[in-house]
């Protein structure tokens, strides 16, 4: 049984509290991947998810998150490696897996021309549940997602948030062991998003359902997940708890900018500053930040700030703004992938499971 130590992609700092390699993992993958011809959407990915945790795949669009989740829910066939879900082999025992997992896609899969209740009933029948059990579960779920009043109205009349909640409820009707959420809050307004996070947390705490989610929202990964895997270009760059990963990004982040809005942008100041500061031993790392500035990673920001201003002043580089913050997951992402999440543009055409190009129109996240 290979452990994370065998994976060439992860450094030592990913070990403590991080990957768990265990036969009892509820999801286990081993050098697992999906290639579409030459293009490797998911490349040699190995990870384990423990029962009861909320596990997230964090990465920009095109990183391979959706492909990963679609493989785990048996929609897409892997082209390499092996995986088990709830102990069942992904390729050999596909139907067994389907019985114990729930899936909520990024786009809402709710049937608008059926009522909320009818959607849930159909879903129950697709899992071959008997009618009394279906009825009981429907009542429970409608209460859980707060749709009891509107249950008999057509789902097409629901708001976006309501449809999402219904979608999640249909993924739960058969009391799955693992719930897979693909970009659960993409395209939702902040209020709905916060409410959804609440539901997901409660689901996990009260019902003990393992949650596997993919997201490109740093805040979502940070707030919801017990552990996250940072994925980029189909490879896992790091796996650990959000706090651990943030701690690994050294100390504080001092952000400085050099440009006044009214003056033309001039990179020379930034580059000179970069050269000057990189020579300082107390500077751990320097990255280009938004708006043409620099993020300087230091041990103690409050001591570094006056020093930075003084140094740059010596070299006649005026500092326009300076700010101090704790590292965010964006900094973590930067550290492990060399890019900021926000830089990522989604260029790739996503294949849908039948191998044909997926229609791109109007879907957030560019899928």
């Amino acid at each position: 049984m290979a452990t994370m130590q065998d994976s060439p992609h992860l450094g030592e700092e990913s070990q403590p509290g991080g990957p768990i390699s265990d036969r009892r993992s509820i999801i286990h993958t081993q050098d697992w991947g999906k290639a579409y011809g030459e293009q490797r959407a998911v490349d040699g990915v190995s990870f384990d998810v423990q029962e009861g945790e909320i596990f997230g795949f964090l990465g920009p669009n095109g990183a391979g998150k959706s492909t990963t989740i679609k493989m785990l829910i048996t929609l897409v066939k892997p082209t390499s490696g092996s995986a088990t879900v709830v102990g069942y082999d992904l390729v050999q025992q596909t139907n067994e897996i389907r019985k114990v997992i729930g899936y909520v896609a990024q786009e809402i899969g709710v049937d608008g021309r059926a009522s909320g209740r009818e959607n849930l009933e159909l879903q129950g029948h697709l899992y071959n549940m008997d009618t009394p059990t279906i009825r009981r579960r429907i009542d429970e779920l409608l209460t859980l997602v707060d749709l009891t009043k509107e249950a008999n109205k057509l789902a097409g009349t629901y708001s976006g948030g309501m449809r999402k909640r219904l979608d999640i409820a249909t993924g739960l009707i058969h009391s799955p062991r693992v719930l897979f959420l693909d970009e659960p809050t993409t395209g939702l307004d902040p209020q709905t998003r916060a409410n959804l996070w609440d539901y997901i947390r409660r689901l996990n705490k009260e019902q003990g359902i393992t949650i596997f989610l993919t997201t490109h929202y740093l805040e979502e990964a940070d707030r919801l997940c017990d552990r996250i895997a940072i994925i980029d270009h189909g490879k896992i760059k790091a796996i650990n708890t959000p706090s651990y990963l943030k701690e690994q990004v050294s100390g504080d982040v001092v952000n400085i900018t050099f440009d006044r809005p009214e003056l033309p942008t001039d990179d020379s100041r930034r580059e000179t500053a970069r050269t000057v500061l990189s020579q300082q031993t107390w500077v751990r790392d320097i990255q280009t930040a938004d708006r043409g500035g620099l993020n300087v990673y230091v041990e103690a920001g409050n001591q570094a700030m006056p020093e930075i201003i003084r140094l740059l002043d010596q070299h006649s580089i005026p500092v326009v703004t300076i700010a101090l913050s704790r590292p965010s997951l964006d900094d973590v992402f930067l550290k492990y992938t060399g890019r900021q999440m926000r830089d990522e543009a989604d260029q790739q055409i996503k294949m849908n499971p039948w191998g044909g190009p997926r229609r791109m129109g109007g879907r957030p996240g560019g899928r």
Partner: protein
Amino acid sequence: MNVIKNTYYLTMRNIKAQLRVPVFLLFGLAQPILWLVLFSQLFQNQVKMMGQLAAQSGGANPYGTNSFLDFFVPAIILQNVLFGAAWSGTLLINDMDSGVLDKMLATPVSRVAIVLARILGSVVTLLMQIVVLLLVALIMGFRMQSALAAVLIAFAVALLFGMGIAGLSNLVAILTRRSEAVMSVSTFITMPLFMLSSSFLPLALIGGWVETVAKFNPLYWGVEAVRQPVLNANVDWGTVGIAFAILGVIAVVFVTLAANAFRVRTAV
């Protein structure tokens, strides 16, 4: 059995979904009713004249009746099935594009059931339309010689024919995943099928290559089979039998091809 239960519930879902967008059903009915009204106005006199001509030389009206309505309604019914069933594949593509299908595929539902339910859903909805069409025709003066046999045969033929065409439509949908392809195939096939048959004229009056080609047209056989009990007190069960055989084979072939194609495409 799983397949049967799954098919049942999915078919009910498909039927309800279609009924809840009545616009499409009404739209689907508008054309046949329009044609019924217009064509009967156009051709009613022609049929009467043929009857008189034939009577003069002691023969029978080649139409088999003096009422164009009685002659035409069977054709209109099957035309409705033909055009309606040809659209079935686009509904499957809608589910593919919307994420509804993905959701279903993550469950242990039988893949075959999904396709069967799509086909059956379309066909059952079409049968409901036929009830309305028949009522409208009856109001217009349509009469059947062997009414019970006519109704039973009409629905049976419509069912088989519908399944065959819907099967083809869904097969195209599964292979191409594009509504445009389904609609192109639909247009390319439905009009010729409808024209190269005895829908408007008895074959004897058409003659030539059309008469030969029509014998290979399943729609021709379907229309003739329904016409038998409509126009005759003594039904020629031979014609009806051949029609059932041809339509049955076509239905089995296309439904099987569609179900198989889907199973293969969605296999993991």
